[in-house]
């Protein structure tokens, strides 16, 4: 039971962290709440299905092509649609929510409303101290952790990453220091789409691939980022894992059905008690 909780919770937590990090970065850098984020995840899974099952590519090539496609779409949407309304936060939220619905309906027309299944990179299970864990889940955990560490290294140690964080701290000052902020927006969009798309690919083999799959991950990423304090990457990771464990605990101890309710109830209560999030430094409107 405890081991189940530990492993299941870690897998969930790492997956949520992957989704939430891009969302958080996007908010921190561009100051927009991008509700299209869940659709990157959906597109990642559907492109992976297209390339691996329909086109019959080798799985690694399929994953690579899917990520490239998702990132390309994300950059195009950001450059030609979101950038036009970026000055109004609400309009961005509604536009991206509209785009997400549009994508959902488009995907439903192209692929149908049915559940699709894709093959994972690995088969079988791994035995960890008496608990058999499906390899695909373990691989999802490992890849997520690697990506999280890579992102941390990127934003803290490389010049391009530091430039992004500088824009996040103070866009105007960063511009004065010679940082190209529109390039920072594009790079952030690419990174966040990459992370969410990767999440879609690695969980596609063991979660359902269907047209509404974007909604709950979106709400969760949104919630995690807000509870972790808008713009705080560390806060997002901590809250993601915390919620991963709580959800796994609820589904193991009580019922899978209640998982989402408990999650949303926590979100609601935290927002009311501490509107700036658990690790927020204070709201800046």
């Amino acid at each position, binding site marked *: 039971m405890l081991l189940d909780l530990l492993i299941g919770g870690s897998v969930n937590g790492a997956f949520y962290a992957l989704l939430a990090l891009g969302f958080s970065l996007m908010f921190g850098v561009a100051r927009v709440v991008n509700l299209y984020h869940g659709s990157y995840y959906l597109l990642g899974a559907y492109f992976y299905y297209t390339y691996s099952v329909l086109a019959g590519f080798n799985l690694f090539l399929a994953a690579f092509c899917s990520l490239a496609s998702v990132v390309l779409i994300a950059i195009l949407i950001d450059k030609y649609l979101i950038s036009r309304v970026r000055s109004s936060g609400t309009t961005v939220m*509604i536009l991206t929510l509209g785009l997400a619905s549009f994508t959902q309906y488009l995907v439903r027309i192209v692929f149908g409303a049915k559940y699709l299944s894709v093959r994972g990179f690995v088969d079988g299970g791994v035995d960890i101290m008496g608990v058999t864990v499906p390899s695909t889940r373990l691989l999802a955990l490992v890849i997520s952790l690697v990506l999280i560490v890579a992102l941390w290294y990127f934003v803290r140690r490389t010049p391009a990453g530091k430039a992004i964080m500088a824009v996040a701290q103070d866009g105007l000052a960063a511009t004065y220091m010679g940082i190209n902020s529109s390039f920072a927006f594009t790079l952030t969009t690419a990174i966040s789409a990459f992370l969410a798309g990767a999440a879609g690919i690695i969980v596609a083999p063991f979660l359902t691939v269907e047209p509404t799959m974007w909604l709950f991950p979106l709400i969760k990423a949104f919630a995690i980022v807000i509870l972790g304090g808008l713009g705080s990457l560390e806060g997002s990771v901590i809250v993601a894992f915390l919620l991963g464990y709580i959800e796994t605990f609820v589904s193991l101890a009580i019922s899978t059905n209640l998982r989402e309710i408990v999650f949303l109830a926590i979100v609601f209560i935290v927002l009311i008690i501490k509107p700036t999030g658990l690790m927020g430094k204070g709201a800046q409107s």
Partner: protein
Amino acid sequence: MRGKLGRKPLLLALFLALLFLFPVVYDNGYVLSVLVLANIYTVYVAAWDMVSGYTGQENFGFALFIGSGAYFIGFMTQYVCPVSPWWGIPIGGLVAAIIGLIIGVPCLRLKGPYLALATMAAATIADRLVIIFSKYTGGEDGIYGVQFLTNSPITDYYASLIFMIGSVGILYYIGQSYIGLLLKAIRQDENSAEASGVNTTFYKVAAFVVSAFFGGMAGAFNGHYLGYVGPDAVLASSLSLNIIIMAIVGGTGTIINAAFGAFVLAIVGEYLKMFGEYHLLIYTALLIGVLLFMPKGVFTTLFEGFSPKDQAGLVAKGGSSHEHSGS
């Protein structure tokens, strides 16, 4: 004042007269049912606009209020006794108003994305609860047997028309009164409004409760009209999204423009169904187009065209504040 409004009141009167005469000229059950739903949607959106358009605090979970009004009637029908529409609709409104108060007091400290998330979470919790406790709520299938509004499509139509005109009229009146002005002041700059001695929290919560009341009444109305209460009709998150779409397409912050947006889009949405599975795709594409090319909304842009004296909305603001200080 006449200069400010231009030909708008005349057009509005003409439009309403047309709606009243419509069944006499063209009595078609299907068309009437489309118009009834359009009337109900108009009330949803006008009620949403009361909070979200005026104070700029977008409610992303408005279906919660609609659903609580409708489901209360459903539960009454199933567990206590069938309720007549005369009682059901106002009671549904009151129940939603109470829920609005409970949710509104804690939520309205939140702003922008925080409020969006909180309202979205609250509505999704309700939606999930209905599915989880499907033994009592009917789950996806909902509750049948709610007493019908009236016995004929024509009286249904007139009931919905009167309900719509009454609700939108009251909401518009509140919006035009000093309360609307205060709410707009809160949108512009809440701190300044507070500093000028306006109890901003009180007015925000009051607007939330009024908005919830009309949302709940319209939800109960919908329940009585369909004889049925279910998540797809009154609680789904797609309903909340649809309400936002309609208000944005019409133009927020004036009640009337958003209401027009709802009325027209509800009809357009219904007739787009002839495109089969493409209809929702076209519908959302329409929204995206409006957001990109007419960010103020179709009707706000159109009506500005009707009254040329109203330059860039500046005169309208000055005019309305003058009007209020005079009254």
